[in-house]
């Protein structure tokens, strides 16, 4: 039962969607950005506390589907201690991963999103938090939306 679905909704994803980690605002955040997926109404806000070039703390709030919530939750866990360059590289890897299903380079736990590529309508859900992340690092004031980009 649910073979293809098991690829999409991996146990790790189900767990993070039901119990999102780092799910809170940060009063002291150095930067933040909003992500919006107008198609489903997914809405999230990402907070980063930077120490020089390094992500010291990351958290998020918002509402969305299982995939977008789990993606934001896993993102906040996986970018701690990473530099801006690391983060940019991670974005590219996650992007490739959800588009093609192929794991290129070290992605750690994020490999659970490989199944998303079989569900084209859900790619935007998986990548939303990552777009918000880039926007936060660039210090962009306006919300990013999944409609301005190919994914």
């Amino acid at each position, binding site marked *: *039962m*649910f073979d*293809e*679905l098991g690829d*999409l*909704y991996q146990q790790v994803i*189900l767990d993070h969607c*039901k119990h999102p980690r780092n799910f809170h605002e940060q009063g002291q955040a150095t930067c933040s950005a909003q992500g919006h997926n107008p*198609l*489903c*109404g*997914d*809405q999230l806000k990402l907070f980063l506390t930077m120490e020089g070039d390094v992500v010291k703390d990351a958290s998020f709030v918002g*509402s*969305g*589907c*299982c*995939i977008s919530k789990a993606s934001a939750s896993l993102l906040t866990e996986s970018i701690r201690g990473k530099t801006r360059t690391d983060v940019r590289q991670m974005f590219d890897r996650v992007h490739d991963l959800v588009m093609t299903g192929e794991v290129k380079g070290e992605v750690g736990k994020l490999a659970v999103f490989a199944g998303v590529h079989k*569900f084209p*309508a*859900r790619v935007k*859900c998986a990548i939303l938090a990552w777009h918000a992340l880039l926007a936060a690092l660039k210090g962009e004031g306006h919300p990013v939306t999944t409609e301005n980009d190919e994914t």
Partner: protein
Amino acid sequence: MITETSPQTEPEDEAESLADWPAIRGDFPILDQQVHGQPLIYFDNAATTQKPRPVLDALSHYYQTDNANVHRGIHELSNRATAGFEAARARAARFINAAQPDDIIFTRGTTEGVNLVAQTWGATHIREGDGILLTEMEHHSNIVPWQLLAERTGAKLMFLPVSGDVGLLDLNRLDEWLTRDVKLFAFTHISNSLGTINPVADFCARARKAGVTTLVDAAQSAGHRPLDVQEIGCDFLAFSGHKMCGPTGIGVLYGRQEVLADMPPYQGGGEMILNVDFQRSTWKPAPHRFEAGTPDISGAFGLHAAMDYLDKIGRHRIAEHDQELGAHAYARLSQLKGGIRLFGPHVGRAGLVSFLLKDVHAHDVVTVADQRGVALRGGHHCNQPLMHKLGVESTARASFYFYNTTEEIDRFVEVLREIQEFFGA
């Protein structure tokens, strides 16, 4: 089996006999397929309906035998295409009991119909400070064209409130809303996300008393129940062919001839002019004044076949069947344990149900259902302001048509149970 009828003979409702629903379903080749290894259950009919064989045949027959441009040639094929196109107009007039074929403007669909009224009637009738009354359950296509008009003119938009999840309009207070400033009242007949059926004849009667022009969005009703514009008493009524077994790309805007007569043109171009000089032109009367350029001719042929097809079944029968499916779905869903929020009226609903499972996002419901062969819609259904009012971002929706069955609904409810289990809700 519903067979093709020639454009000239109008099918009569066979009031005595019962509709043979399984045979009717057999007219829809697309329904006979597997999706992700499961039999397709198509429950996205409010978005667009499937097309029966007579409609598909009419389209290919048109292109194989009659294709030519309309109102231009004097050769045989052009005569045939023109005759068929105008026969479709006359058929559409009979379909909604318009006084005459000239009350029928062919459009791309409901959206274009509303935009046409906003741009032409709106340009000459709406001034700064005027009120345009809508309802909170309108589809974006019956909100945004009025926002654009309000921006241009300085008119103000007002919204008749929806009463929470049961999705009814407060009719006791309608007369208070129909003030002297209000020039237009535009409202949906059937809500595409709540399934509410509005008493449109009553709305129009009250509006008329207050001297207010009316527009009915019949996108969700035209293919689902008998429609009589004279009985409804509206000034305008718009619908889409593709939501009633017809092809995409064709729709109808009905306008009362007296109202159409003094409306300026919509788009400029061929077909709509009497005479063109380099500096100025004169227009044809309605409806041709509003139909610039080559129209969707095959679409009109297809729509004609769709209207014949629906009336052969009988729209009153379709309405009954809708109600049965809607009531069955609502009853089965409300018994679902584990938390479900249902939207729309408890009784007298159209054949669609919007819902939210506790702790499961609508898009996750739709993705899993799709893997079980069940096509649902998840999202705001082009009703974003309404969703915000109800405090939700999106809902999942199952919308039915006459080829759907109670067995399919039972299977769908079973799938929802699996989904609840899967997400541990």
